[in-house]
């Protein structure tokens, strides 16, 4: 027995020698673009089958496959890293130790730790999701114009509200005006609803938490039973609000993924992210920039902010629960946005009829206290406001 173990162990040692040798020779061949090593720091488990981390993991692996990179040998992940600078730092050190070329950090709270690390490891590229910090060389951030997709899903909800005759729309949100991310999503959605149905009211119920399945269900039910909402939109991870809408015989707009399988009779369409679009762009830039110093210059901007145009955000296919002409109206508005003729938070208001005909007219963009945000005919609110400082609701939105 002992002999067997000894043979086995020595065989193992030989094998490990061989694999070491292989990696050495690989490095010797030089900076081949296909050798790109990708590092990722996740807030939840890489084995998740739904939710935020899953969406990013899926985006990274999809992008790698598209670029012909091997997920098994060229992707290094440290997962379940809380938003604590020391732990983020430890994750960065682990990944740098694996000689990765680029590190993606997917959670907002990694921001300061990544900034410090970027200064300390100039030979590695750092790329931070949802953040706002960057430098001129090897540290950028990325986020998307989710409000554009929200607006499109709002159109579907607005047309449905016209069809059912119920003007009350509910919105289960992780947070409200505390974060520009949630506020811009709520406002984009509400403006989409109002473009179709000016009488519609959007009731926002805040969870105070990014993931809380039990209350996501309870809040949606409460919006339906107490506020008489006929459509439930959401900014939270699980499909519970859609399921609650289905159980009550109502309708809803999901988020993050097509929630039609979860609520086949209720779901209209969901605002979704195509994270792979960014990850592919970033990996290509990392392959072509020569050295990490040139990454931001190669990307062209320290703050990537893709929208419908880049296909970074989108909506899931229109379900058969939607009112007639929904596709037509959405296609028309999508064209306006993609061509750069119009954007959501501007002094130009779209009016959409039940037949799906879209017309443009100058109008003030008001917040729900009656203040003018953008005067009639004015240009769109700046990107920095949408990502960073939007802390108001547009007219017709109220907290419930």
């Amino acid at each position: 027995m002992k002999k067997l173990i000894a043979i086995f162990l020595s065989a193992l040692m030989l094998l490990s020698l061989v694999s070491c040798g292989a990696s050495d020779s690989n490095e010797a061949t030089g900076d081949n673009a296909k050798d790109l090593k990708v590092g990722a720091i996740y807030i939840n488990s890489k084995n998740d089958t739904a939710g935020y981390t899953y969406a990013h993991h899926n985006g990274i692996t999809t992008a790698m496959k598209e670029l012909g990179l091997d997920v098994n040998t060229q992707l290094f992940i440290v997962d379940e890293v809380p938003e604590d600078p020391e732990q983020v730092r430890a994750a960065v050190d682990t990944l740098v130790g694996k000689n990765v070329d680029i590190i993606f950090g997917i959670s907002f709270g990694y921001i300061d730790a990544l900034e410090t690390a970027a200064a300390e490891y100039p030979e590695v590229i750092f790329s931070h999701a949802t953040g706002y910090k960057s430098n001129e060389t090897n540290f950028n951030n990325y986020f998307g114009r989710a409000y554009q997709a929200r607006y499109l899903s709002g159109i579907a909800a607005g047309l449905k509200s016209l069809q059912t005759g119920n003007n009350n729309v509910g919105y289960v949100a992780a947070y409200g005006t505390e974060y520009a991310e949630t506020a811009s999503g709520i406002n984009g959605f509400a403006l989409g609803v109002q473009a179709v149905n000016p009488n519609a009211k959007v009731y926002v119920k805040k969870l105070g938490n990014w993931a809380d399945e039990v209350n996501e269900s309870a809040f949606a039910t409460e919006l339906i039973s107490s506020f008489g909402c006929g459509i439930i939109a959401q900014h939270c991870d699980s499909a519970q609000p859609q399921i609650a809408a289905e159980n009550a015989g109502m309708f809803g707009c999901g988020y993050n993924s097509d929630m039609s399988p979860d609520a086949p009779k209720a779901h209209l369409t969901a605002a979704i992210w195509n994270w792979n679009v960014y990850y592919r762009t970033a990996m290509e830039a990392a392959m072509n920039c020569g050295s990490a110093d040139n990454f931001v210059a190669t990307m062209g901007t320290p703050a990537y902010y893709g929208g419908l145009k880049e296909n970074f955000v989108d909506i899931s296919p229109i379900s058969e629960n939607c009112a007639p002409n929904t596709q037509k109206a959405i296609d028309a508005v999508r064209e306006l946005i993609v061509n750069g003729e119009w954007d959501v938070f501007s002094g130009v208001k779209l009016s959409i009829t039940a037949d799906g005909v879209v017309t443009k007219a100058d109008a003030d963009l008001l917040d729900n206290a009656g203040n003018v945000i953008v005067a009639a005919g004015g240009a769109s609110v700046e990107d920095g406001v949408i990502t960073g400082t939007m802390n108001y609701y547009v007219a017709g939105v109220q907290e419930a």
Partner: protein
Amino acid sequence: MDKLSVITSFVHNIVVFNIPLLYGTVGEIMVEKSGSLNLGVEGTMAVGAIFGYIFGCYANSLGVGIMVAFLAGALFGLLFAALTVSLQANQNITGLTLTTFGLGIYFFVGNSVKANGWPVMGNYSNIKDGFADIDIPLLSDIPVIGRGLFSHNMLVFLGIAIAVGVWWYLKHTTLGLKLRAIGENPAAADSVGINVKRMKYIHICVGCGIMGIGGYYMGLNMSGSFNSSCWINGYGWIAVALVIFANWSPAIAIIGTFVFGFFNTLRVSGTSIAAAFPDQFGWLAHIPTQMYQALPFIITAIVLVVMSIRNKRGSSGLPSALGQNYFREER
């Protein structure tokens, strides 16, 4: 907005979303009355939930789901019993370990099943219909509170029945008396011929089985939608505290569940009540969400303090030998 329907829905929510606490609490009371402190309620509920839900769906039967949830919880309890009763492991540590282990099983089994096609509750008519609200004639027709209190799914009534049953069992049967004796002083109980080990094993298993059904309820209440977070969501821990709240009485546990549920549900319905009755309750809308989130736990802390003061006066239901392993040869 219909003012009366707001109250109805508030009362309804208190019951619907907090019954799992009752299962957890009653199960834990049974375990603790045998002198064993099982902190693994969260894990036990998770194990009962995942197996109950999956097998219930495969069999398309709510009854099978309840049975499997009970058995899974009981088997998990058997593990606790084997470790603490037979092998004399530290009860606190074992309970905490089982929480982690149970959640691990939950995600392992759930993710494995999901990879091969998750059973969606809507496709299993018997489960969906079985979990639908039942109207009780006359009682459910009482205006305003009738539907809130009496139109509920079968498992709500089962939970109340189990609580009452366990209360009666502990208080009015010989076996219940023997069990309480073991919890107070296992050596004395042993000396009068009570089989301490066997009684502990049985009641730990049954108690954990009850917790398992509570977990199954959570799964059904979430419409069996399996995501990256666990269905139990910390309810198991609250149940451990509710045991003290209830002073180890399943009857008080029913009241405790609804008192706790009242504050828990304020978070969901507070703003609706404020909107419906702006003059009387308008202030509810000005309380920050974070305060609502913290409220149930603040209440728990206050109750624990009050109970510990009360217990000093000697009216406690706390089993004296709670948390101490009984080893016959050491008498």
